[in-house]
């Protein structure tokens, strides 16, 4: 199996914020396997924590297991797409089944669910799976771009021109998601693939960050502190807290240090003998 620690710099931080007693966000990442999972749970009492916790556990566990058996870049005969597509979709749907099952059997967990954003880095690209309003941003050449589209009422209103971007900043509907993991027996997962370049910086975050800070402030912070990713993550969380910290705040940063092309079959077999 390929180890990506030489190519990826990953750091993560989660904080309950200034208002909430619980932290219903959960994060997980593994630089060697090249994946990040971030989930923002919802539901009464501590059910939100249960949902996001299950999501991160199940997805991380399944990805590790699948990556041991299969190379993510290998094209599958069924549809010609890399195996990574099936891996991510399977992992998120399993998390959905597990949360839904728990919610059905545990009355105190009824109605719980979670957003999720997952990134799997392989072969100089990242495949992103997401459900809900947790986001992935990319900083490239100093410019910050949001590369996931929220599954939220507000995003739908923006898309259909019912609300302007300026009005959206004042909307009371920022917290309403139209899709979540664990609410229904099955879930539709959005998958999208992006080429990565050395020097790219990826930001996974929950809405506790993106609702409290302007994109411009996030970009300034990442540009200024990119030499020290743990400090950059800390600074983002602190800025969200300084702005009120009304929700849980989670941040995972992935810096691309160098190329990580998939090795040919023979070469990877050779190195695995040597390794």
């Amino acid at each position, binding site marked *: 199996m390929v180890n990506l620690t030489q190519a990826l710099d990953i750091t993560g931080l989660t904080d309950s914020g200034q208002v909430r007693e619980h932290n219903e966000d959960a994060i997980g990442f593994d630089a060697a396997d090249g994946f990040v999972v971030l989930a923002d749970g919802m539901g009464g009492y501590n059910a939100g924590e249960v949902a996001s916790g299950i999501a991160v556990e199940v997805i991380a566990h399944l990805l590790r297991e699948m990556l041991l058996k299969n190379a993510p870049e290998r094209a599958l005969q069924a549809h010609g797409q890399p195996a990574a597509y099936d891996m991510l979709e399977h992992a998120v749907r399993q998390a959905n089944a597990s949360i839904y099952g728990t919610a059905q059997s545990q009355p105190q967990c009824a109605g*719980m669910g979670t957003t999720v954003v997952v990134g799997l880095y392989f072969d100089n690209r990242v495949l992103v799976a997401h459900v809900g309003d947790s986001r992935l941003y990319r900083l490239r050449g100093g410019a910050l771009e949001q590369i996931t589209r929220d599954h939220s009422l507000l995003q739908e209103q923006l898309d259909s021109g019912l609300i302007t971007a300026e009005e959206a900043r004042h909307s009371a509907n920022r917290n309403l998601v139209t899709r979540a993991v664990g609410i229904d027996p099955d879930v539709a997962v959005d998958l999208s693939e992006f080429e990565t370049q050395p020097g790219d910086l990826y930001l996974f975050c929950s809405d506790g960050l993106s609702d409290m800070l302007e994109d411009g402030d996030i970009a300034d912070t990442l540009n200024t502190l990119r030499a020290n990713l743990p*400090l950059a993550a800390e600074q983002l969380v602190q800025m969200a807290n300084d702005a009120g910290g009304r929700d849980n705040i989670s941040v995972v940063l992935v810096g691309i240090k160098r190329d990580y092309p998939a090795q040919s079959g023979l070469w990877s077999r050779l190195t695995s003998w040597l390794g």
Partner: protein
Amino acid sequence: MAKLLLCLDGTVVKEFRLNRERFTVGRRPTNDIQIDNLAVSGEHAALLTVGGDVFVEDLDSTNGTVVNGKPTKRQLLQDGDEIIIGKYMLKFWSENAAGSDAGTDYEKTMMLRVPPAVAAAAPAPAPVAAAPRPVVAASAAAVAASAVQTGARPAEPASSPGVVKVLTGGNAGRELMLTKNLTTLGKAGVQVAVITRRPQGYFITHVEGAQTPKVNGVQIGQSARKLEEEDLIELLGVQMAFFTH
């Protein structure tokens, strides 16, 4: 629930609660708010509630709908907005400002669902205006556990901006105004420190390099240090002083 106060010449005539998704204003008696005045069109304007938001929409009225002095076709309303229709004024108050009558925590992430019967017929959520009434699936537990948020944003950082004055080296005498949230000092790849502006004041933190900066002769280590008036900063052999004007 949001409400509208119908006012004429500065006096409140009547109060309306926006208890329906679509609330209409006009001269005809079929409207939810009927205003019997010739300057008001038969169907003049509508108020649309979408989740926690309320929009006002002009229904191609003859004399138009004006919000806070500006004519509008459609716009998101905010607390205290004044909608002028003819000689009348409608003052808008949202539920959040009116207090916690709903008891729902609107900051908390919640799932928005279409009713099951509709979901089966049209799984993809339709554009909002045409969509069936959305139901926020907040569990009873979520409502019970909710706490009312105080919406106040904390105050902006200290009004008098901080300044770093270079005391030694080639740039001696130069002053650096700390007007941004983050200001870096030093040389990339060698030694860099950042000064962050926060509501509590200014802080200096080590970013990169083997050495950490000194403040008043003491290495600051890896954690942030609050800067006080006339603190002496030393970085890459250059001495600087911190002031607030």
